[in-house]
């Protein structure tokens, strides 16, 4: 199926053999040549065939490409018209959707199809989606603000054969959260991705003990001079190999401008969405800004992390009861989960 470039020899044949005839006939278009060689009727027929081919291969494909772009940039955009869900692909080209909500539900319908293909370079996707769904940032803020261990309910696996570690691999990242309801003493839950990197849900800020700085160190026993060092902030983090402890998931300035703005509007103290901790600000306070070696993984990693974050949003969207302060979440909700997912 080598196309065009590898068929350059056809072009050579055209140039050496056929071009002289076309030059001699002094025509400008293909149909004109048919008119001179055969008849005006032939010219007409070729023109019509060309028009049909143009519509089928140029216009339709161009519009299709536009739909792909929309589905990629705004995967969550959708319209409800009556009982029909119009996902972003068809919103993009102004057309009725193919309703695959039977399998994925309206939320997943928009992201089930096309957008997963270009997650490597398309970093603006979620920010753009925020424009249309500002409420999302609030939910992120809530998630970052400390979800309790039992807030995340088990999801039933629709595809038992699928590995639970498929987060970030593509379509059904949600299943990876099956196990997240098991409480751990450390206040975190982890799901491993297909590439063996863990996505960690930290329920409340985690600190580790460290020696006090020299200036603050007293003369007593060493254990009295400990200070709390922020280790991980509440939120959802993609585990970065190599610098797993220092501010994992702190995406700082890389968090989208819009996300941060919405989060600030929503009153999130950190002023950042996506589970970005106050911890980093805390740690960096009073310290000259310097380039941190290693840094936060950007690009694809960042996107994968945000993707899981969105999965968590989905939990908050439809599958979780609102976590009222002080109230105990329901212990088991597999029945209601099942009914909501129909």
């Amino acid at each position, binding site marked *: 199926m080598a196309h065009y470039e590898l068929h350059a*020899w056809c072009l050579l044949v055209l140039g050496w053999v056929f071009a002289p005839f076309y030059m001699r006939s002094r025509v400008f278009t293909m149909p004109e040549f048919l008119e001179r060689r055969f008849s005006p009727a032939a010219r007409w027929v070729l023109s019509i065939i060309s028009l049909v*081919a143009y519509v089928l291969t140029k216009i339709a494909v161009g519009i299709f490409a536009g739909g792909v772009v929309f589905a990629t940039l705004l995967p969550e955009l959708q319209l409800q018209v009556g009982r029909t869900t119009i996902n972003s692909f068809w919103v993009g080209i102004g057309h009725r959707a193919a309703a695959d909500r039977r399998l994925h539900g309206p939320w997943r319908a928009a992201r089930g199809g096309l957008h997963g293909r270009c997650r490597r370079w398309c970093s603006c996707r979620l920010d753009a989606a925020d424009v249309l769904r500002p409420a999302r940032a609030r939910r992120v803020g809530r998630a970052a603000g400390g979800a309790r261990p039992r807030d995340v309910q088990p999801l039933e696996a629709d595809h038992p054969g699928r590995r639970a570690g498929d987060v970030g691999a593509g379509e059904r990242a949600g299943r990876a959260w099956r196990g997240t309801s098991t409480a751990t003493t450390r206040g975190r839950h982890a799901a491993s991705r297909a590439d063996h990197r863990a996505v960690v849900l930290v329920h409340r800020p985690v600190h580790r003990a460290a020696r006090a700085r020299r200036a603050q160190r007293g003369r007593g026993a060493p254990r009295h001079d400990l200070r709390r060092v922020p280790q991980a902030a509440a939120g959802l983090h993609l585990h970065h190999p190599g610098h797993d402890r220092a501010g994992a998931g702190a995406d700082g300035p890389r968090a989208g401008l819009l996300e941060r703005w919405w989060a600030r509007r929503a009153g999130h103290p950190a002023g950042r969405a996506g589970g970005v901790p106050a911890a980093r600000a805390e740690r960096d306070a009073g310290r000259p800004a310097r380039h941190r070696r290693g840094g936060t993984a950007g690009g694809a990693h960042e996107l994968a992390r945000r993707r899981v974050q969105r999965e968590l949003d989905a939990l908050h969207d439809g599958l979780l009861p609102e976590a009222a302060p002080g109230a105990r979440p329901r212990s088991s909700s597999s029945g209601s989960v099942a009914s909501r997912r129909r």
Partner: protein
Amino acid sequence: MMVVVGLAVDPVIQGARGLYDYLQGVQGYLAPPIFAVFFLGVFMKRLNAKGCLSALVVGFALGVFRLMVDTPVTLGLEGYAGGYQEGSLLWIVNNIYFQYYSLLIFIVSCAVLIGVSYATEPPHEPQLTGLTYATVTEEHRRESRASWSINEVAASGLVLLMILAAYVYFSG
């Protein structure tokens, strides 16, 4: 109007195995009669307008027929999702590999072009001056010969070499 048709075609692209397959398919169904008419039209001076017209129409009709047969299956319409009844004509048309079908269109177009042309009157000779291989005058030949030199030949050879290299490189 063309945009509306284009919109209507988009579900077909979505249902196809991919944009590339779709494009190759449509071009494969619509291009063969055009190629036949242009190619043979230069090398056979006996071909006339009626043959050309019928070849174009027949080839185009075959291509559109295949597209129309394929569309309900691609869309998965009610009753067509599983394809046609096995063994029926539509099933055969639907299941021929698209490149074989292109070849079929090309052969049929050539046959119609030659058959109809020889069955009807030959074209008016002066009309063809300089337009077919057999009706090129000596003056035309000189003109063409004067238009190229060793440079063009060398460049073409270079391109050929590059194509060959590409083929060799990608043959594994």
